[in-house]
């Protein structure tokens, strides 16, 4: 489903070149839920941005659902993201002047889907993320946890092949964090959607089926997390 081959990336800062990713290789199967774990500066966010087509790598290839996204131009990438990729952000990134329902519908607006179909789908997703009665509210009227649920619903509306979640619980308290993780796990199970979660918290990564650990731009570990009982998650 997702294949990263020999991926390297170098940032130019004036005359200085900083290599932030070194020959990363890994593959993710359909329906997987993996965590990209690493401390600040490990290159995990850069890797996510590259996989999402928001940046071009210096070297290597990225295949999503059989498409080499590195070769795509800006418009092709936008159209590819529109139907194949979902995003969940740490700071939710909802549009404040749109209602909750309109925010969820937004990716379908860019696809040119009719308002009635959009509305019906948004309603279903609101129920799935547990906020069926919040559709007509504005995002400012919701708590952080509720806003993240809206963000999750928005990422799912196009039924993408893969969802990238960048520190999805970073802005939430422990109880809400657990609720959001539970929702993600449930959706992964019921909808067979691939989730790639970027986190610096071992506790969050331990909820996934596989953890890829990055350190200083190198892939240092790729294994199933070890549970408290000594088994795998």
């Amino acid at each position, binding site marked *: 489903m997702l294949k990263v081959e020999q991926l390297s990336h170098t940032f130019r800062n004036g005359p200085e070149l900083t290599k932030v990713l070194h020959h990363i290789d890994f593959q993710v199967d359909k329906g997987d839920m993996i965590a990209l774990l690493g401390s600040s500066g490990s290159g995990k966010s850069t890797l996510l*941005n590259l996989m*999402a087509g*928001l*940046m071009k790598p210096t070297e290597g290839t990225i295949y999503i659902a059989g498409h080499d996204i590195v070769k795509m131009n*800006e*418009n092709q990438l*936008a*159209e590819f*993201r*529109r*139907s194949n990729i979902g*995003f969940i*952000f740490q*700071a939710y*990134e*909802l*549009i404040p*002047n*749109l209602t909750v329902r309109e925010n969820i519908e*937004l*990716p379908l*607006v*860019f*696809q*040119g889907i*009719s*308002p009635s179909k959009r509305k019906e789908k948004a309603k279903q997703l609101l129920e799935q993320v547990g906020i069926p009665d919040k559709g007509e509210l504005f995002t400012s009227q919701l708590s952080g946890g509720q806003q993240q649920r809206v963000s999750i619903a*928005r990422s799912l509306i*196009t039924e993408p092949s893969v969802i990238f979640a960048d520190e999805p619980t970073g802005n939430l308290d422990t109880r809400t964090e657990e609720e959001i993780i539970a929702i993600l796990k449930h959706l992964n199970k019921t909808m067979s959607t691939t989730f790639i979660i970027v986190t610096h918290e071992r506790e969050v990564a331990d909820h996934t089926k596989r953890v890829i650990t990055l350190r200083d731009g190198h892939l240092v570990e790729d294994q199933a997390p070890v549970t408290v009982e000594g088994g795998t998650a």
Partner: protein
Amino acid sequence: MRARDYMSLAIDQLRRRKVVTGLCSAGISIGCAAIIVAMSLGQSAQIYAEKELNSFLKMDEITVTPIQNKGDEVNKDVDNRGKLTKQKLNLVRNLPHVKAASPFEEVGYFSMHTTDDRSNNVQVIGTDLEQLANFNHQFRQGGPSDVADTIILNYGAEYGLLDRATLEPLIQKQNQDPFNEEITQQLENIQKLHTPLFQRQVRFERADTADQHKPTTSTMRITSVIKKPADASTDSAKYDKKAYTSLETAALIREQLKLNQGPDAPPASEVGTYKSILVKVDDQNNVEQVEKQIKKLMLNTQTNLKQKERLEDTFKMVRTIALGVGLFVLVIASISIVVAMTMSTHQRRRQIGIMKVLGANLRQIRNMFIIEAALLGLLGGLIGVMISYWLVWGINGAAARATEAGQGFIFIPLINIPLGIFFAVLTGVLSGIYPALSASRTDALTAIKRD
């Protein structure tokens, strides 16, 4: 993306950013109003001038005269064929688009005296009195009479009659001091004096002879007075003084005033021929066509179409200047849109970034901003139309108070409204292009990056 979605996103933005929307719309509405008012002023002035010109020069009339040569033997045949005969008059009357045709022969300018010896100067014209109504002359009192020695006066002929004892000293004073405003004003006031002449008797006197005993006509009765022409202003109508008589009475006046005598006397018309006829055409646009047909009858024609063409050329220039002024104001106004939209692009970078991450392509982002700018233009255009109506209403009100006519002449031709709105929307779209391109080029990752 559907058109409806573009619209609702754009409307939502305009509604949320009320101050920016208000300022941009105000700027563009002033430009739009400037275009509409400037063009309307040009067109109204042209129509007003044409109307005034038409009331003087009668654009829908053709003066027809015979073709005359020197009268030598060589050209005698041409003279005979070029005569303006009764048969030719009947042929002209039956031409397509001809409303009326009648002899109008100028007898001359004479002093018209009432029985109480008040006088003014009038132009005497011999014609078929029954045909006067067909030349847009409506009778205020009475009507044409078959009786000999009767005349019909126009509206202006009843004004400015004064007894000689009062008038002559005034004219003498004016000759001595031509720039004396007081005397000029007195003479102008005399022109406004009205003397009802219906059913009264008058006689005409030649003023162009030094004889002590100036030739004078027998007394003639006024059987009708014509109304003021609808398309003429009161002032201009008062200065236009005419007396219409039958062709027979015209011949009698010529005889009594000894116009047929002397070396410079014009030759009398042959029986069954005319010196001049006037043709009324149903529409100004058909004058040229009718004129061509008349020329085929070996007759001379004369129209005032050239004056109209000259007037149109002048006003074409006025309209172009007016449009230029309006466009200049609109260009200035468009700067406000460029500034506001560019600011808006910067303020909404994060939102644009989110949209791009969610799959909006360059075209969609660009279109969103252009439609928003077009809506601003449309809003400004609609407000501009209202402003232009208020302005025209104000100008007409001021003109009505300032002039004797009591009404303004500016109107907004309907075509100017869509034209004004079109320019406003065009300004919006053109002003929105740079901000739209700038928005579409926003780097999504940089836009959503948080410090």
